[in-house]
């Protein structure tokens, strides 16, 4: 429902995972396999000298330090900003309006998502089949979409639960004069397990 970029999530996991596998395997083989170990040791000196010569070849003004370090610092700051943006973007996509359209030349009709959410929640909270219900509105492909999650009491038939929610959605359709796309999520969960089972047959 939300606008989380799932491909990006998986891409990050894949890249970090492959990097960790590569680093871990390289470290282990460098110690375990004599061939790799000797090669690593032989190249250690030249690599160190090469890096030292780079650091000396890139002085930052007259301060005596290389500008490579501050450059690395800038890259690190950029990476941190990107990762923060990535982490904070998860789970977004809620919207506050379900209808926003211009009718004729007299103005605009805006319906807040609270109207739809509270209408459905009101209808559902009175039902004995559910221990809890929650309605929220998300923007899916630029279309406001309702998400109705209900937690069923133990033993309630999902067909009945779905019929109850659908009838309240249809009542809302009548009220608004249009059909909003909707997702109904029927779940059990902890509260359903500890609450009493249904007495409806």
């Amino acid at each position: 429902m939300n606008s989380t970029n799932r491909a990006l999530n998986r891409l990050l996991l894949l890249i970090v995972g492959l990097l960790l596998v590569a680093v871990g395997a390289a470290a282990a083989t460098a110690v375990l396999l004599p061939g790799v170990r000797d090669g690593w040791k032989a190249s250690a000196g030249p690599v160190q000298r090469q890096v030292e010569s780079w650091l000396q070849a890139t002085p930052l003004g007259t301060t005596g330090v290389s500008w490579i370090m501050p450059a690395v610092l800038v890259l690190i700051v950029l990476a941190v900003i990107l990762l923060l943006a990535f982490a904070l973007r998860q789970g977004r996509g809620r919207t506050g309006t379900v209808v926003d359209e211009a009718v004729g030349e007299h103005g605009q009709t805006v319906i807040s998502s609270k109207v739809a959410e509270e209408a459905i929640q009101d209808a559902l909270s009175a039902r004995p089949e559910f221990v809890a219900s929650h309605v929220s509105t998300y923007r899916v492909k630029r279309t406001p979409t309702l998400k109705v999650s209900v937690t069923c009491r133990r033993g309630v038939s999902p067909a009945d639960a779905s019929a109850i929610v659908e009838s309240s959605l249809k009542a809302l359709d009548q009220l608004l004069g249009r059909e909003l796309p909707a997702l109904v999520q029927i779940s059990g969960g902890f509260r359903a397990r500890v609450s009493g089972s249904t007495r409806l047959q």
Partner: protein
Amino acid sequence: MSTTSLRRRITRRELHSPRSTAAIVVAVLLILGLAWVGTEIVIALLGLPALLVAPADMFASAVNLPDAPAAIVVAAGAVVVVIGLVLVVLALAPGRRARHVLETERAATVVDSEVLASALARHASSAADVDPDHTSVSVSSRHAVVDLVPTTGIPVDRSAVSSAVERELAGYGLRRPVSSRVRVRESGKVGA
């Protein structure tokens, strides 16, 4: 129609894990690691003593890795490889959630397998005349298995239970059909 494509997108996303938790954990750990390295660089540039390891020492110990104690390096390497493999699996596995899609008229509907199981358990126990506490049902993506422990002395009509369960399942309108199996325990329980 656009509503059917919208509905398909919503149900597909509801059936699979977004991997948000894992991605956020990895991102936060990366941020912490990078922030630490950045701080060490700043401190080194200011010429102050390092917090834990100076950047130059980090580089030197990476280059001279084979001289480090072998057991520690191998153990750490193995742990890192395992964590990496877990992340690769998380990235590539489908991550299906224990949910089912109902074919309904008005809205896209997803049901936790748990809810299906508890509804089936109620019907199975009343069809078998067995205490609900002695009925257990597990629902996977394609199968529902009903386990009954009969009350001692009262035989359970297996075909009646299985037809009741099948009637229930057919009535739900599951998009992916679920087949059912009823198992009646050999030994019953006294009382109840």
